[in-house]
């Protein structure tokens, strides 16, 4: 099962390295990691997704907690969590393909953010599943490049 960890950390030099280093040393695989400033000055929030079947999640969180710069960890309940990732995808769009690509983009509420004679670049925001579904439909057109942030997540309602 995928776990989404929301980790509040001190925004100090080397914090990302400490976390990445810890995961590497203990042999935990990160599926994705996104980080940015939080609502509190001096603190950043990381969203880390990790496969709980592969690693005992309590070991991951306990080891993370040992880092002095880690303030708080929440293992978010998927049913009570809003998560979204940003994806940019460049597809081939020559001739007939162009209208097909535009149609798919429309269905997924993806924005066309760049266009040239041969390609279209789509920007889509949504769950990881939505990104996957979009990619599946775009595949036959020919995907040139994909860039994804990995999900960021927040618990519903009050903390």
């Amino acid at each position, binding site marked *: 099962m995928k776990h989404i960890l929301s980790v509040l*950390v*001190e925004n100090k*030099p*080397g914090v990302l*390295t*400490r976390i990445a*280093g*810890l995961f590497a*040393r203990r042999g935990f695989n990160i599926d994705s990691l996104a980080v940015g400033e939080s609502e509190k000055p001096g603190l950043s929030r990381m969203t880390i997704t990790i496969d709980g079947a592969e690693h*005992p999640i*309590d*070991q991951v969180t*306990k*080891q993370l*907690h*040992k*880092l*002095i*710069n*880690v*303030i708080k960890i929440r293992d978010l309940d998927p049913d009570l969590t809003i998560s979204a990732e940003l994806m940019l995808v460049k597809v081939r769009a020559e001739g007939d393909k162009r209208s097909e690509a535009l149609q798919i983009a429309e269905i997924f509420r993806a924005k066309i953010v760049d266009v040239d004679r041969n390609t279209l670049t789509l920007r889509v925001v949504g769950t990881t599943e939505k990104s996957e579904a979009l990619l599946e439909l775009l595949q036959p057109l020919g995907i040139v490049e994909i860039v994804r942030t990995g999900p960021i997540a927040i618990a519903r309602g009050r903390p």
Partner: protein
Amino acid sequence: MKMKGSEAIVASLEAEGCDVAFGFPGGVMIPLYDALMDARTLRHILVRHEQGAVHAADGYARATGKVGVCMATSGPGATNLVTGIANAYLDSVPIVALTGQVRGDLIGTDAFQEADTTGITLPIVKHSYLVTDPADIPQVIHEAFHIAGTGRPGPVVIDLPVNISLAEMNYREPTGLDLPGYKPTVEGHTKQIRAAARALAAAERPVLYAGGGVISAGASPELLELAEMLQAPVTCTLMGLGAFPGTHPLFLGMLGMHGSVASNYAIHECDLLVAVGARFDDRVTGKLSAFAPHAEVIHIDVDPAEIGKNVRPFIPIVGDARHVLARIVDEVKALGPEPGRTADWVARTEQRKDEFPFHYDEDMKEGDLAPQYVIEQIDEVTGGDCIICTDVGQNQMWATQYFKYRFPRQFISSGGLGTMGFGLPSAIGAKIGRPDKTVIDITGDGGFQMTMQEMTTAICADAPIVVAMLNNGYLGMVRQWQDLFWEKRYSATCITAQPDFAKLADAFGAVGMKVTGKDEVADALREAIACGRPALIDFRVRQEENVFPMVPSGQSLDEMIGGHAPKKRRAKPAAAKRDATPSAAKPAATPPGKKADAKGGAS
């Protein structure tokens, strides 16, 4: 108060109560070393290699319970500390390592003697700092001492760019601690403590398994009280030796790979195992799935990440060993367990101790000195009142088996990392921390040669330690594995080409002695202890003696080899192997050639 950064470092160290620092200067450390000349209470001990500094700080910390401090210059100075930092990390020893760093504007340019010290040490520190503002110095040092010495202790690195040491700054006392991400749990959970007390009061075959956490928490009196109240036998890990008196009738000895038969069998047969400040290391458990198969486990540790890491406990308790044990003692008292409940069990462990003591061939002719006898004599001559530091390998294991550790912080040894070369510098650190105690470094000819330059440090620092070298001309523990599991192919373990150690000690300005016969051992030890100078005794011991009993790597604790004391025949290593099993019901363990299991790495 206006001062230089370097002066602020010294003032801050003194404010933390640091009275000694072990180190070696270098280019970027000149400002700090200059300030050290004017230190009021802080004494600097110059080592001869930075590894010596960090191990000495480690030995000092273990002997005194205070935070040990070492310092080294940037680049090679810092990288020479790395082994010792890892050593302190794995054994949870509180040290603060100050490293010089190149000027801030040169960081990242591959400047002369630049190394990414915080990066290199990242996986082996409890925490680290790269100071970027001289005004932060007092606060950083205050935090570093707090983090190193509280919770589960560990090493903290402070990397100091030279411009920070040189800068003028306004010294301000630290403003308390603001570490929202660091709040070690001290008090255990009341419900869990009650559950543990109930389980203990009901257990008929309990064993208390004490690790280094008991020593660092100062929980020995509570452990003793609990053991006596419950009449529960106690076993210690390597790190835990001294946590419980080795002379006590309830003491089983060390457990694990070279532990006592009584300990390992008690683990195998107990119905309740209480791990206190211990972490179920592979050298302790052997085959994990066969460890304590009949026991429910209570695990008490200050580090929540240790709980459930290797063994899933029936009752986990996160907290400081001293607090938790004290409360368990109170709870058990209130429950008033039925007296005599464990009598059969204790009698059984007693019988095992009688039946399977540590043993060796005591028939020593001239030139045939048993290393185990030397250790016994150290115990005898000192009356057990000394600090023992060890190196790593056979010397270390014999030191665990044949000396009875009576008090906490008496036994100082590299457990987790297994660092050869640890013995001598750690003994110097221990002696400087505890000048009132006789300090004996039990070492081998291999390990001694890894850090022997520190003999000079002992001389200059006036640290009259005794180096008791068990010289067998081999890297003995690896040779033992080659003997048992690699068809005696002694690849790179025979080190008979070596200096005359007694003369070498002499050359260092220490007292050097050579002992070949049994009858000279005690006198040599007495002389070395009394001489008031650093001394080295080169004990020429049996060359191919093995450490028994032994649980081969990856096997269950009840599958020991060499545990049986032969009744009439003297145990030769080969014979000991055939005498593999203490109990006739058990199958003989590990025929040689089962290499895959044994390759885990000797040390």
